[in-house]
């Protein structure tokens, strides 16, 4: 910030997001409101988790950013409870919708959460975003109360189980196909990640002796950064820095968000299509020692990709 003191110009792009405050109820400007809200949400997350100072970060700044995130999450929660999860209003609460909603978290960690269209975001995906590794672990995912955030614990829907199993096997397949060193590392990393997420409940108990439940809300995980920073350690989460940063801030493929469920020909299956092998592999990227950018062509055949797709879709 204190370079040669050149005059700073505002981004034209930024200006486009600024301007008069639009209320969420305005019709045409709702998009810009949600866009602005999402942008601010992203910026806030990055501020909290991308900062690696040598000195303690300012508590005031952390608190203000946390409050911002909470407010946005509250808004999203309220909007989520009033409207169906789909982008379009044409498919209100139906079993399909429920399935999608509940299945969503399984895949949401593959996407970079912060950029999901707001309508598809609930508190669960955010948490998944922060703890993607835990979702690879059956136990944590199934028993996490936040998945069943609308009530007491209930058994996960059957749709989930086959997905997870097939996902795990798909994972293995991919690893077989990857070059040996990376696959070994990927497997090791995946195991470590799974191990970490198994550990994290106890870790979290150590950090929070006040006795929080394992599957905390996203807010509480965000707030972890506060006591951690000031009471015990500087860790901002229970994942390793590598995992968290790489998953959150790896190069983001936004092709998923161009997908419009309205225009898809098929039913539920097509809803899952956007979560392609691309996303899967991007998640694996951090586990490999070779940096994989989304633009790099993958080393797999298209046939392999199709195979995985079929497995995931369960058809």
């Amino acid at each position, binding site marked *: 910030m204190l370079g040669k003191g050149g005059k700073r110009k505002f981004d034209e792009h930024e200006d486009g997001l600024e301007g008069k405050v639009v209320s969420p109820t305005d019709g045409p400007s709702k998009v810009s409101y949600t866009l602005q809200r999402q942008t601010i949400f992203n910026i806030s997350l990055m501020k909290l988790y991308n900062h690696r100072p040598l000195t303690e970060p300012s508590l005031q700044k952390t608190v203000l950013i946390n409050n911002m995130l909470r407010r946005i999450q509250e808004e999203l929660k309220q909007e989520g409870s009033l409207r169906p999860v789909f982008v379009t209003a044409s498919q209100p609460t139906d079993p399909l919708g429920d399935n999608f909603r509940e299945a969503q978290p399984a895949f949401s960690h593959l996407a970079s959460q912060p950029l999901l269209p707001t309508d598809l975001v609930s508190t669960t995906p955010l948490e998944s975003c922060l703890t993607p590794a835990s979702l690879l672990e059956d136990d944590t995912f199934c028993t996490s109360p936040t998945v069943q955030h609308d009530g007491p614990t209930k058994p996960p829907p059957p749709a989930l189980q086959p997905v997870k199993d097939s996902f795990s096997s798909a994972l293995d397949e991919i690893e077989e196909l990857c070059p040996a060193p990376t696959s070994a590392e990927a497997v090791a990393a995946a195991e470590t990640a799974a191990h970490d997420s198994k550990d994290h409940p106890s870790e979290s108990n150590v950090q929070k002796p006040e006795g929080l439940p394992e599957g905390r809300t996203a807010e509480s995980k965000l707030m972890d950064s506060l006591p951690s920073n000031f009471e*015990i350690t500087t860790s901002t989460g229970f994942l390793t820095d590598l995992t968290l940063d790489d998953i959150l801030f790896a190069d983001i493929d936004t092709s998923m968000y161009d997908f419009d469920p309205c225009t898809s020909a098929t039913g539920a299956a097509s809803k899952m299509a956007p979560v392609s092998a691309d996303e899967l592999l991007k998640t694996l990227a951090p586990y490999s020692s070779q940096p994989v950018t989304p633009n790099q062509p993958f080393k797999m055949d298209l046939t392999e990709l199709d195979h995985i797709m079929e497995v995931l879709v369960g058809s």
Partner: protein
Amino acid sequence: FLGAGGGNDIQWCFSQVKGAVDDDVAEADIISTVEFNHSGELLATGDKGGRVVIFQQEQENKTQSHSRGEYNVYSTFQSHEPEFDYLKSLEIEEKINKIRWLPQKNAAQFLLSTNDKTIKLWKISERDKRPEGYNLKEEDGRYRDPTTVTTLRVPVFRPMDLMVEASPRRIFANAHTYHINSISINSDYETYLSADDLRINLWHLEITDRSFNIVDIKPANMEELTEVITAAEFHPNSCNTFVYSSSKGTIRLCDMRASALCDRHSKLFEEPEDPSNRSFFSEIISSISDVKFSHSGRYMMTRDYLSVKIWDLNMENRPVETYQVHEYLRSKLCSLYENDCIFDKFECCWNGSDRQVIFNRTVTFFLPPLCSIVMTGSYNNFFRMFDRNTKRDITLEASRENNKPRTVLKPRKVCASGKRKKDEISVDSLDFNKKILHTAWHPKENIIAVATTNNLYIFQDKMN
């Protein structure tokens, strides 16, 4: 009638600038606090490198009646050093957050300086004589051979070059878990308070191993933390009263006689939010960065991101006056959030004592408050003054360009939108790296000290 005019009647002239000229700013040279002492003769600055530099005003030259004395370096010392917190594996910055002078009681000067964790009381004393003519020692200190001593003499004090020494007299440490943002000396001149993000402690100047916690807003569960303390100050006359401001735009006035732990405020000052101005950033821009009592103690001034507010202590539900510092930034808040500028902490200050007016520096009138001006900084090295009586305001720039001594500063104007007039600057051309966070006003005269990133500017009003 000199000295009694309003803000725009004062014509501000460039007087001096201190600091490096080159654009490349060394991090350690960034000025982090500026404070005049009670007489105005001394001006102290603290920087990010933990150093304190004190300037002294020259004695007035009777022949040079057209300008007040210049400020020259009087003393420089390293107040705080960087430390390492081994428990958290974090550095503790040596940056001086605040300096507060004690009123002068004897020949020496005393000031409190603080970084994030530790407050120090420094004694600054002059030495202009030294004893000479010892019997047993040479002038350089070596001991003489006793057998060579044949006569006896009495050592005498002889003048020497003025030497200013700073020595730490008290170190008040280990009382703050969080970062200290304020220190304030009580009107009893025996105690002072120090405030961090969540707690305020009361100290006695003589006692370093004990302090009393008078405010604690730390929640039992840190997850519930949504508000922090941003500034605190003792009332100038009432030694049991102090205020503290918060990140949510509230000010609480507390009376230490009410209870040992002043968690229950006596008064809560808060302005209801203006619904037409609501945005995502409403809370952040309402966070108060500075609070200052007026000299009389009847009013207090607060600074939030976009405005300066004057509060009457008798009215809690809204300020009596609000001045917009840079309202044109309201539409840029998202960008300012992204580049962190929205978290900049601007300070504010009152003009010199509103009780006395000095005429020609020989006659002092004690008048009811006539001239009341408040000053605060902005971006692009601009700073703003608001005259509370005439309701006029002015924007000036602290810059080395076109600033010869005694040249009157030209008012600046920012063009918010539309067609930019000549000499106006458009909002998009503002340099947000050039921020004036710290300003100070001489306690008695119209002399102001304005700190840019690494330079200290001194301006005076044009005399005659």
